[in-house]
């Protein structure tokens, strides 16, 4: 008799992370074949039975073929649903289209809502994600969403790698102030804020620093580093204000466009990202990138979800490696 055991599936997006999670859980990744038809339609076949199993599907997205990865995920979910899986949990380390979460202009699409609807339509019963751009996205779903935080892992990294007393936490925009204060509280540090006037997405204009960074190591924290325009500009601002050095810690290192070149020419000494997004290639282009492995958190969330234990412990604590 098959017991309701855990099955871990992954698409083509981030095999490395899936492998880390599966190793951590001590299970094999389920055999899945993801192919593309000659006209680029994705085709899935799942190589083992998922009937009455607790299925977890890990799928990240990376710049370039986000939509392919989304379709892949949806098809995987749907295949498991039609194959009578008991419960399907989508593990989306970085939630795609999270930034299109409001109607900020006339007739702007709320694509994050669309993503939520699509996941549910495909047959998803549960979503695990990390550092949502806006927590309100959880409300777009009618199924439970566990929004994990990379913060405990980040705090540990800071404690292990920097002299905590010499640091100051900097938020690059007003929206990230809450995240920055939370980290600053966790480390018992001061924090500063950069106010920016944004004209268009991915373009940065004037910046004003509020707070004192003189002689300190400025740690810029944010939820994602995309083109890195904001981070590079913010680094310039804090250095102008007398910081001794400047590093940035972000959860999702999307690093699209010419982000690597920008980083290489910037005042940022380091960019620390988690491995929610595959970035091994980027690391070769830019030696300032460092990685925090968050697979233990994801694995632990999967394990706890499967066993019906509380996940809230993970909001404050990072599992030990």
């Amino acid at each position: 008799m098959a017991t309701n055991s855990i099955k871990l599936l992954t698409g083509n997006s981030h095999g490395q992370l899936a492998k880390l999670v599966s190793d951590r859980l001590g299970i094999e990744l389920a055999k899945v074949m993801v192919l593309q038809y000659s006209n680029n339609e994705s085709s899935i076949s799942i190589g083992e039975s998922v009937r009455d199993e607790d299925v977890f599907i890990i799928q990240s997205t990376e710049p370039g073929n986000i939509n392919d990865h989304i379709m892949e995920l949806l098809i995987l979910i749907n295949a498991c649903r039609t194959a009578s899986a008991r419960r399907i949990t989508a593990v989306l380390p970085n939630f795609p289209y999270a930034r299109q979460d409001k109607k900020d202009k006339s007739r702007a699409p709320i694509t994050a809502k669309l993503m939520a609807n699509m996941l549910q339509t495909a047959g998803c019963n549960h979503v695990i994600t990390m550092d949502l751009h806006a927590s309100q996205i959880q409300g777009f779903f009618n199924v439970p969403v566990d929004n994990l935080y990379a913060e405990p892992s980040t705090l540990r990294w800071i404690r292990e790698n920097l002299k905590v007393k010499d640091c100051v936490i900097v938020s690059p925009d007003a929206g990230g102030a809450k995240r920055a204060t939370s980290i600053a509280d966790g480390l018992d540090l001061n924090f500063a804020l950069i106010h920016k006037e944004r004209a268009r997405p991915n373009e940065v204009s004037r910046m004003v620093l509020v707070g004192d960074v003189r002689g300190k190591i400025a740690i810029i924290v944010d939820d994602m580093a995309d083109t890195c325009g904001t981070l590079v500009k913010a680094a310039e601002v804090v250095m102008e204000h007398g910081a001794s050095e400047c590093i940035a810690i972000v959860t999702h290192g999307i690093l699209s466009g010419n982000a690597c070149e920008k980083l290489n020419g910037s005042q940022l000494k380091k960019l620390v990202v988690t491995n929610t997004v595959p970035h091994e290639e980027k690391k070769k282009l830019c030696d300032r990138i460092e990685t925090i492995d968050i697979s233990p958190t994801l694995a632990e969330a999967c394990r706890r979800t499967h066993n019906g234990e509380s996940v809230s412990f993970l909001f404050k604590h990072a599992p030990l490696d």
Partner: protein
Amino acid sequence: MRQTCIFSGSSHPALVEAICGRLGQKMSNVTLGNFSNGETRVEIQTSVRDQDVFIVQSGSGQINDNIMELLIMIQACKGGSAKSITAVMPYFPYSRQSKKKTHRGAITARMLANLMYVAGVNHLITIDLHASQMQGFFKCPVDNLVAEPLLSKWLRMNIPDWQDAVAVSKNPGGTKRVTSMADALNISFGIVTTDRRRTNGMLSMQGSAIFESMGTDGTNDRAALEGDAEEAEARIISNAGFREHNFAQQQRQQHAPRTNGEMEGLHHRPSSRHRAVTSGLSPTVRTRLNTLNGNGESPASPSPLSRSTRPESVGTEGSISEDVARLGLLRTQTAPGIEQPPHDYDGYEEAEGEDDGDDRARDVITGRLIHGHIVEDDFPSPSLSVRSGSIQGGIEQRESRSSEDEPLPDPMMQSFMSTTSSRMQAPQHGLGGTGDATASDEEEEEALKDPYIESTVTLVGNVKDRPVLIVDDIIDKPGSWIAAAETVVKRGGATKVYCMATHGLFGGNSLQELDMCEEIEAIVVTDAFPIPEEKRRQTKKLIVLDVSGLLAEAIRRNHHGESISQLYQHFD
């Protein structure tokens, strides 16, 4: 039209331009692009409040991007308080994944239908869904337009002898589409079916002792016998009158491949009697047929082994029956579903020699298909060559793969497996083709490409000296089209082959391969699926018909609340 907006997705702007031109309306403004991280970005630039919105999106090489773009556009219009949102998808993506093909396969087409529903679509207009049952996947109304009138019109305008033409389906699944066209034009129709068969699978079904001896004979006599089969067939076919298609014929088409499979092992057995029958033919006929022979093997290169063993097979008992099998002239007199034991053919054979009056058998022609091409009847089957140890050019590499390497399904397991997996054995339906409209094209293509798989191709219907139209809904990979074209020309004696389909996907370098196939005269598709200019330039055989009129009319009628049923009728 007042109160309407027509938006174009990025997949096929040329078609939308044409539609708007016909409707006398400007395309509404929308900015499409990507964010720097690759997420799709949509900005609707005009007000859509209380408007009928039509969003035209086909597929393209970036099909998943097209889908996301469409969904986001629908969502944006919904959020912008549009009165109704109609998705116009000339090609419906993922329409080939409309049922569970394998264990745990996804029904992606249904999921896409649901996704469109949650995005907020109110109506869908599409052309020639791969399976019209897919309309049931939607919660909103679906107008499944047909391109058949367009294709028929082209046919009547451009083929002088179209009334003699035969519409041929290249798989049983598409029969309905073909009969519909044949009925509309009042022309005959035929079917080409491929009976997939892994050569190794034969071993488990045949006695190994028999098999060994066949292997020797079959390979060795090839040189002496080449062409004979075609001669005999051609002789008989030429007498055969084509009969109106009817129910019985459809039954036979289902039945023939199966009995073929049973008899397959015997195909390679040569016989002296057969030569005696055909030797009276004039040399010119023989020459002509030789040139028509398959491209797999040169007749002028007999194996040194061949002569030595030939006499042994001459005049042996049982060669008579094998003759028939070798000719591929199979007769099925039983009702479908009743398997005929091979012995029955012995009885028929005696009659077959003298009695050419029974024309039922003549409509069925078989051929052998290896690596996607028609080969001679005595071309060694891949596993035969391994067994007999003959070394033929281009076959040696196959020897490395012995029959034991392959996990063979246990013969006892086969009936059990066939009920669950179409890969093991195609499901057989009682009627010709309506059941399995989505017959696994991809798998068929794979089988055609696999040199270890030999298929038996069966042609039902008379195409002798007539132009042939091979009709289907999608042209993607070329293998099955080329195989069907070769079958009707080399086996059936057709004059010209026209490949006609609604959607020309032309994956990979499919268009070039089709272009290079000598048997194909022209490839006729519509522009429902965009065909890039550089692909069009690669071939002179490609003819692209314009569907903008059809779509524009459907949009206009929908907006004004008129009936669209006239769009399904043929026009002159």
